[in-house]
């Protein structure tokens, strides 16, 4: 019986060694260690042995069983790892293939510029005011110190619908309307919107374009406040290193009137093609609100003063992003629009 046991053990260990995968090994387990296996049979057959041999034989069977079990488990661990490795091998993917695209759109570049400006001024306590694009001559011109027949009306040839109604030529009528509505109270607003002028569309002109204007009215508003405000704006939009300079200019609704240049953000002031070799770039027009404009809206120009400024988001976008033709903003070529997707900070 002992011989029989040894032969069985040798046979089992050989089969364990020969098992090629987990399934085969499990078959070996069932065949040798299972309830119907030969080892169990041997144990069952022990009853036939003489009583004094039984403990010795029992111990021997257990030793064999232990040995077979240990071998089997070790082999099982090896085969399991092998199986996992094979699975991993099969599951290799080409990680250089493209990902499933996430479809995202983005804002129009002009919206991007306008919102950036809006947010900056909101942080300084401004509100956003809007108004109609089809406007009364009164708000578009007369309330802004541009009576009928004023020579400066030539500066902005307009689209009239009737003698008194036109497509607004600037967003300033929103200022006039806000002043009228506020009834003499202080104001701090930003007015963005579409405007229209009788221009032929070409690389630098568009019959429709956008404007964004600002208006502050209060007690003792000074020209130095205008300069400080514009300086904050220029640094925020074009970089901390930007310097600004004011040049005298003319607008009928402000007096004094200025144009603001910023130091060139491309060359830093040494001169390049962006600044036409001057080191400065013209960005916006501004000035102290003309007393006639204040008075027409019911403000006491002796007690209150104000400043206003206005700029073209198209021009700013063209400068900032290097766009060479204003018509790009209105043709909606997706190869153009989709470039304004990423963040810039």
């Amino acid at each position: 019986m002992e011989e029989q046991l040894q032969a069985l053990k040798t046979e089992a260990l050989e089969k364990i060694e020969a098992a090629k995968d987990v399934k085969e090994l499990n078959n070996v387990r069932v065949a040798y260690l299972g309830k119907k296996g030969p080892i169990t049979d041997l144990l069952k057959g022990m009853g036939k042995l003489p009583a004094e041999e039984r403990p010795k034989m029992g111990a021997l069977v257990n030793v064999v069983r232990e040995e077979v079990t240990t071998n089997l488990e070790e082999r099982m661990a090896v085969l399991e790892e092998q199986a996992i490795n094979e699975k991993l091998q099969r599951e290799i993917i080409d990680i250089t293939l493209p990902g499933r695209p996430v479809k995202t759109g983005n804002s129009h570049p002009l919206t991007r510029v306008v919102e950036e400006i809006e947010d900056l001024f909101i942080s300084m306590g401004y509100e956003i005011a809007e108004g109609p694009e089809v406007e009364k001559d009164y708000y578009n011109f007369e309330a802004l110190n541009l009576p009928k027949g004023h020579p400066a009306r030539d500066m902005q040839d307009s689209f009239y619908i009737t003698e008194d109604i036109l497509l607004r030529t600037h967003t300033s009528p929103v200022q006039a309307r806000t002043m009228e509505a506020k009834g003499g109270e202080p104001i701090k607003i930003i007015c963005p919107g579409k405007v229209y002028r009788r221009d032929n569309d070409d690389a630098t002109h568009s019959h429709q374009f956008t404007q964004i204007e600002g208006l502050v009215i209060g007690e003792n508003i000074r020209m130095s406040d205008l300069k400080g405000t514009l300086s904050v704006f220029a640094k925020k939009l074009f970089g901390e290193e930007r310097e600004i300079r004011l040049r005298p200019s003319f607008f009928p609704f402000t007096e004094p009137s200025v144009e603001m240049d910023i130091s060139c953000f491309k060359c830093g002031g040494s001169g390049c093609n962006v600044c036409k070799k001057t080191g400065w770039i013209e960005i916006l027009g501004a000035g102290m609100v003309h007393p006639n404009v204040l008075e027409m809206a019911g403000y006491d120009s002796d007690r209150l003063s104000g400043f206003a400024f206005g700029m073209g988001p198209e021009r700013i976008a063209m400068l900032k992003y290097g766009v060479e033709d204003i018509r790009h903003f209105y043709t909606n070529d997706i190869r153009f629009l989709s470039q304004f997707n990423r963040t810039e900070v």
Partner: protein
Amino acid sequence: MLVSIKWLKDYVNTQDLPADELGEKITRAGIEVDAVIDRSEGLSNIVVGYVESCEKHPQADKLSICQVNVGDETDQIICGAPNIAAGQKVIVARPGARLPGGMKIKKAKLRGEVSNGMICSLQELGIEGKLVPKAYAEGIYVLPEEAEIGSDVITNFDLDDTVLELGLTPNRADAMSMLGVAYEVGAILEEEVKLPEISYPEAEQTAESMLTLQVDAPEANPLYAAKVVRNIKVKESPMWLQQRLMAAGVRPHNNVVDVTNYILMEYGQPLHAFDYDALGTGNITVRLAKKNEKITTLDDTERTLSPHQLVITNGEVPVALAGVMGGADSEVSDSTTTVVIESAYFASSSIRETSKNHGLRSDASSRYEKGVDPNRVIPAAERAAQLLSELADGEVLAGSVIFDELDKEEKIVTVSPDFINSRLGMKIPFEEMLDILKRLQFNTEAANGQLVISVPTRRQDIQIEEDVVEEIARLYGYDEIPATLPETEAAPGGLTPYQAKRRIVRNYMEGAGLLQATTYSLTSEKSATQFALTETDVTKLLMPMSEERSVLRQSLLPHLVESVSYNTARRMDSVALYEVGSVFLKTDDELLNEEEHLALAMTGLWLDNSWQGEKKPVDFFVAKGIVEGLAEKLGVQLEFERGEMNDLHPGRTAFIMMDGRRVGVMGQLHPSEQKQRDLKTTIVMELNLAALLSVETEALVYTPVPRYPSISRDIALVLSKIVEAGTIETVIRNAGGKLLKDVRVFDLYEGDKLEEGKKSVAFSLTYFDPEKTLTDEEVTAVHEKVLSALTEVGAELRS
């Protein structure tokens, strides 16, 4: 305004500043210098030559062989100009010379004949063709006899000059003259201004003895002065005068016309010269035109006049449109011997009206429109008399013929130094202010601490205290203004709820994969009402620039779809655009109803992940999903109703409803519309955004997360194809009651396993009770109700 620096030096010391530097100073003080033009740029080695002989080239008809004395030698030069002749003094570019555009003159052979240089036209020296005197426009320029052979053309004829191009704002009409610019430069550089010295011999006979004057419209013409000059010789002007005019952008004609133009540039005062004999009556009468009266102006155009237009007449018929253009009949010609020089003040409104009515703008009319200096009208007439005496050998009759009711008083503006400083946020000393006003040549008195300023009539833009603030600030220097921030109440800024929600809508649309487009508000009459949600009468422009942009849009879609076509025509097959913008609807009110809309247009593939086999073309339901998601985002209830609209697919169009009101439309473009626009399947949508955003949404309060499980039951129904899933869903919801939490379509089958005319729709129903775990029996009880309700409406359960 073009300002020759050489000419400017007649009136003011420019301290020999380099032109760039002078230009920069002028710009910083308020008049923008748009360009600095060096007239001699690229020119060298150009001399006066004398054509000793001129013969036809034997090999070429159009060429001449000239022997030209250039001072140190006589050279052979081949010339192609038709007007070349022996005995002329001409401009010669010698070998080694440079001409504008980098051209270098070399010794050359032309058809076998040696040419030692080139005889030049003015155009070849860089002068614009339209400024070259007509006689020389097609050929070489002929110099006056006194030109010294071999001398340098550039220095002797004032081409060594720099011109500043000023970009003038409408308020600075004073700088539309050399004298005005001289005052400005004088103020900047702290230099005096020298006015021209006027003196000339007068004849004994008086002007009044030859000319009578009557002004019948003194409001439009408060000052009229005329000088009479006789025995003049009409000829070419001297070179210096021609050069100055060309530098100023004016074409020389003859000495009489050139003198009037010269003084226009010098004083800013328009003058007009009449041929005295052609006037024929010895009379000038200024009056308003009669109805249908006619005049042929200098540009050989016959014009019909209307009664409010001011005309100069000879007492009988109009001889000039006052201040705008002269008449052809009384034009100065080569044979003119006696001229009447008119210098007048015409009211700007009158000139603007006439100039606008006839579409005529001239150097004269634009100056009158902006207002001329009342105190320069008479000096300008005197200056003309002087120059005609000097340059046309004219005999000036004594005195002038004058009508004068014009107010020439200087305006007084009083302003306090505190006001100036408080407006600027500065502390400019009083003395400094006085000094600046002195530099401007404004007579100023200091009285009771106030500045009492007499503003010269040339500066009509200075009217109020604020104007003085600007004068002081610009000459003190804007760089000196400190940077401060307004000392206002610290109120928080922000967006209105509407504005905030509009940004949310835009972010949502972009998150959904759409690019924001911007299109034009003006469109053609044909497109104006296409796809309009609410159609009204169209709003037309009075004077459109083209038919394409003549009417205001009532829908965003026509242009948005056009943008889609633009892209697909350039082989970008998948396009998804949205736009937020106003449409313009007529109302009974004077102004329009501007309604803010949101539109979308898409075509091509919505999802394209080809290598994984995922390709989803754009369809109705892609767009519908976007609208549904938007409604959820905004917390509004939108419903979809089958509808029809021109140019949309009749079976694939829905109106979008809110509270029973139509707030939008969506659908596929009609196949014929798609074909016409060269598009494949294109889905569009437009919503009245203003209506959606003006709904006030409830405060957001959380619903507890479910503590009990929900139970789902799926049913597949066989329906007639014409029955809509939405109808069945309503039946299910109504029957399901409170416990039915959700109904979702999860399958649609329309294949041949079903009877003709049938479809199968599968719904997943979710039952849920927030209070407890539902039992199977409870669910079955409700579900049975649902099934019987479905049977009642003819929906069969699919086995």
